[in-house]
């Protein structure tokens, strides 16, 4: 075969210097955030939807829910913020499945980068995604009367607890995302798990009014510990009822503990599921 028209000289190979895990991950974060900028509707789940939750509960149900020693709106806000954070595991799962499905993960895997960069990048961008939601919640809260009453240090500590808990749940998201084949399946599964997880808790109503068996589940639910910790750190409600289960008596320590335990359970599951998916 004779060369057509002008034969170009073979392009000299450029210097390839495989990026560090940190650089590769931050490139992937840049790419994921660009998606959010192009499709701001991706944020609806943590913004409009959460604001709707705040308004529905504060003004529709709120009047009917009695909270001992606290204003319901103040009581509600930390609960909704924890719920927003819990949803980041669904966000990470959907993003990962979508990238796997569309072959984007394959493309990344064909490059000389650490394969964990895909997961690290996904996790960080999902945390940013949820944090935007938490910020929107905080602003909405400020408008309807929620305040941080215990000073800056405790206030910041509560936000850090939220991030830590979100980080732990992201591994659950990666696990689910690596095992499921379609985004629709992930969405169905995650919402089925997330709703009871965030409602059978002290997020929207005090567990004292629940039947004893349900109250026990609610009080041992990790979501309750984190919610109680935020309430106490922000000064949004009284300490847990004297007869409440032990986790609610020590919410800050228990929240940290739960985050470590959940990470220890789900991180190995997530990594091995992702590896298994990546071998074929």
């Amino acid at each position: 075969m004779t060369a057509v028209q002008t034969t170009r000289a073979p392009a000299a190979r450029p210097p390839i210097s495989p990026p560090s895990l940190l650089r590769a991950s931050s490139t992937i974060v840049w790419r994921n955030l660009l998606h959010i900028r192009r499709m701001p509707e991706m944020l609806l789940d943590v913004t409009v939807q959460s604001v709707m939750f705040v308004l529905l509960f504060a003004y529709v149900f709120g009047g009917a829910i009695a909270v001992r020693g606290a204003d319901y709106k103040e009581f509600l806000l930390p609960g909704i913020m924890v719920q927003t954070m819990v949803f980041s595991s669904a966000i990470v799962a959907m993003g990962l499945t979508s990238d796997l499905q569309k072959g984007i993960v394959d493309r990344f895997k064909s490059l000389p980068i650490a394969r964990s960069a895909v997961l690290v990048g996904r996790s960080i961008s999902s945390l940013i995604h949820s944090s935007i939601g938490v910020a929107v919640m905080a602003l909405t809260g400020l408008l309807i009367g929620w305040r941080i009453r215990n000073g800056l240090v405790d206030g910041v500590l509560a936000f850090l607890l939220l991030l830590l808990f979100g980080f732990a749940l992201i591994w659950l998201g990666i696990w689910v995302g690596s095992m499921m084949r379609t985004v629709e399946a992930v969405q169905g599964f995650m919402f089925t798990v997330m709703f009871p997880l965030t409602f059978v808790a002290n997020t929207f109503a005090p567990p004292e009014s629940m039947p004893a068996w349900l109250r026990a589940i609610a009080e041992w639910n990790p979501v309750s510990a984190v919610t109680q910790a935020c309430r106490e750190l922000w000064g949004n409600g009284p300490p847990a009822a004297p007869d409440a289960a032990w986790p609610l008596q020590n919410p800050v320590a228990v929240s940290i503990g739960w985050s470590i335990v959940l990470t220890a359970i789900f991180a190995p599951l997530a990594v091995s599921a992702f590896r298994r998916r990546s071998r074929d």
Partner: protein
Amino acid sequence: MSAAPAVEAIDLVKHFGETQAVDGVSFVVPEASVLGLLGPNGAGKTTLVRMLTTLSVPTSGTGRVAGFDILRQPTEVRRSMGLTGQAATVDEILTGRENLTLIGSLYGLPRKYVREATERLFDRFDLVDAADRMAKTYSGGMRRRLDLAVSLLAAPPILFLDEPTTGLDPQSRSGLWAVLRELVSEGTTLVLTTQYLEEADHLADEIVVVDKGRVIAAGTPTQLKDQAGRASVVVTLTHAADLDRAAELMTSCCQEVHVERGSRRLTAQAGGLGDMTRVAAVFESSGIELDDLGLARPSLDDVFLHLTGHRAEADDASDLTDQGVTP
């Protein structure tokens, strides 16, 4: 060719549970040549490419790309090759330019190089006007070209293409073929999978025919055609109504008669020109009107049929009713 081979598959095996997707495949691709992996859907072509490009871990066997072992030196393999997957794996939400920036940064290429290479590649692939549009607005052909541009960004000496033209219209297909031939003339080694015999015939120096995870034939397109053997007489009728009578006539004078109703065509084995004149004489006296009568050398399609007993392209089966008439 004396140089070390660009790509080698060494007894590659891949099982998915009970399924043996690839069952002991070996081949060698010399530098600056084109290997066509030809086979029907599910033959194991994609799995082979995924193993050689380090996306999938072989159950057993190994391979070398640019001299690097796919199991022991995966990072070096990834630095030496580009991959264009079956579904164009570009990021739809990013613009064409951002897709290249993303991949350039993940290769750790200098920014200045990425900028210049992007201009060069977009120019070459006729994407200049679309460079700053989101890739989801691209047509199928443009997406493929962007995918190829992404794969070529780091100027890899070896390029794997998994069904690069599946789903493209004929014009985009021949455009892509021209680009690929140009790459080869510049010294790039190509490994491409295809279901299209025409494509393999057109592009490949060597063809490896794969069916059910095994190599069933290998050679140059000419060698494969010779292997399929004899020529055949092909008769095309003017009226479909004459098909049955024509088949009877053919059967009386030839062997292995096939009737393709949709195209009003009959084929029969032929030893040489003598057979053709005999068939011509038979039809002459029958009064059946003919559009065409001739001698055909086997195409790759016939090669495939001969080797596997089924056709490579599923589409063929649907618009022709193939009927073997036995004497």
